[in-house]
């Protein structure tokens, strides 16, 4: 589905990605973990197209997307969430999600009809809202939401674009235990047609969702495999015990 080959990136002398190779297979729940400063978000930004790698290649469905712009990657089926809030502040939750659905299934340059007439887009938006249990706040402006709700809206907007690969940048960071549990449920309920690549800090979340874990340490992949195998890996233990979170 999604494949990275030797992706490298440096800011000046600081190497943030060092020949990262990884593979997200269809339906996989692939989680990237690593201590702070491991270059996880920078990697997601390179996959999403917000940054471009210095070297290496990125493939989506077998097609190289390394030089493709972010919107074209999104159109090819890649969706992502952000850690920092970049949602449409003045718009309601529903409108945020609807813009996501319209991106994939609507007519961007249609100026002559009301957006209310596009029932397909409306349906998809409603579906994403339901998937994330956001019905109760659908009409509220995003600028007034709590942090926990914002994390859910993030995922809903991404889902509304009908992605085949979903990149999640710490979906549970800053959530309360009950919100985290809800997020885990929601992620479990997502259909297996969607492959997920996720950055996560919370080990409980990681082990309840992931079927594959990649450990990033100072921009380098030091271990990759099934959760049990990675947990038992001596280098991983060294990194985590030596530099506890």
């Amino acid at each position, binding site marked *: 589905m999604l494949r990275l080959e030797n992706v490298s990136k440096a800011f000046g002398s600081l190497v943030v990605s060092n020949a990262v190779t990884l593979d997200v297979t269809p339906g996989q729940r692939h989680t990237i973990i690593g201590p702070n400063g491991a270059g996880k978000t920078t990697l997601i930004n390179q996959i999403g197209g*917000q940054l471009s790698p210095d070297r290496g290649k990125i493939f989506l469905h077998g097609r190289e997307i390394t030089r493709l712009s972010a*919107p074209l990657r*999104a*159109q090819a089926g890649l969706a992502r969430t952000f850690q920092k809030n*970049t*949602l449409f502040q003045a718009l309601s939750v529903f409108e945020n999600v609807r*813009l996501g659905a319209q991106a994939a299934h609507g007519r*961007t340059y249609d*100026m002559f009809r009301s957006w209310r007439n596009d029932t397909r887009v409306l349906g998809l938006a409603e579906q994403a809202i339901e998937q994330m249990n956001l019905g109760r706040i659908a009409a509220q402006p995003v600028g007034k939401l709590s942090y926990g709700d914002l994390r859910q809206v993030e995922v809903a907007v*991404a889902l509304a674009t009908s992605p085949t690969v979903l990149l999640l940048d710490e979906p549970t960071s800053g959530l309360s235990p009950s919100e985290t549990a809800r997020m885990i449920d929601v992620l479990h309920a997502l259909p297996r047609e969607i492959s997920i690549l996720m950055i996560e800090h919370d080990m409980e979340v990681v082990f309840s969702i992931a079927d594959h874990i990649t450990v990033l340490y100072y921009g380098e992949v030091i271990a990759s495999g099934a959760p049990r195998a990675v947990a038992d890996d001596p280098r991983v233990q060294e990194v985590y015990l030596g530099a506890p979170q």
Partner: protein
Amino acid sequence: MTTATFFTKWPAARGFAFVAVLLPFVVLSPLALLSGYGLDVITEIMIFAIVAVSLNLILGYGGMVSFGHAAFFGLGAYATVLISTRYDVSPWLGLAGGVATATVAAVVIGAFCVRLGGVGFFMMSLAFAQLLNSGAIKWRPLTGGSDGVGGLLRPDLFGFDLADADVMYLFTAACLAGALLFMRMVIASPFGHVLVGTRESSLRMQAIGYQTRHIRLAAFALSGAIAGLSGGVYAFYNGFVSPDALSFGTSGMILLMVILGGKGSLLGPVLGAGLFLSVKNVVSTHTSHWLLIVGCIFVACVMVCPEGILGFAKKLSRSGERR
């Protein structure tokens, strides 16, 4: 269901009924009440309302701060006058040429501007408008230099002569109404929503698959076309155009009209144009300190009601409801 409950249930219907009842009065009463000068003033207000509406599309909905919108207004006016007088064709063809020229210019200039955000966009739009202003001053054989170029005679429309102030007024009102209806449609369309999305968060728009530059450019071109129409009608109205139409000052005035009335609302710019030009007409007959008054309007607008009069009114009515 009584009429009253029908209207409380459907605020949109209430608005529509309101407009349907009032509109004929609004449009026709100046014809009955005013003559000559008064009618001319209202015609001019409506011409500037059109260009303000066009700027509002990119400023209010698209978040693009253009300090060069006079470029498209002026180009529309120049092209209308020049095509009509130099090639001896119908001024209607001139008007069409004016709109086309402004649109093409907006596509070209927009292609440069939309690459930049914030201050860059502002500077770039200003630079292009100044470039055109310099061009109009310098290229004397074509544009008549700082004296401008004139000689346009208002044409007939279905047998009615636009040289008649009443006919010109009605024609301009029709253009403004057309522009407003078009804007209303665009704002409520999928494209209108996408445009607001680029204003709110370009990064997110790109991440969900929108090519924000193209969207901004489309809006910029549309806005330029409507500004060109307004310039063309202005050429009909004045029969004459000078580099002033392309100037720094004119761009600022159009910007003020939008802000004064309330950006990001359909009728705000119309209100702003009306208020600004009314004050101008009243003040300049009484005092020579017009610049001082304009300056104070700018300052007061920014300091007291940055959301414009419509925004201010909305805030007032909201706090009124809370009480």
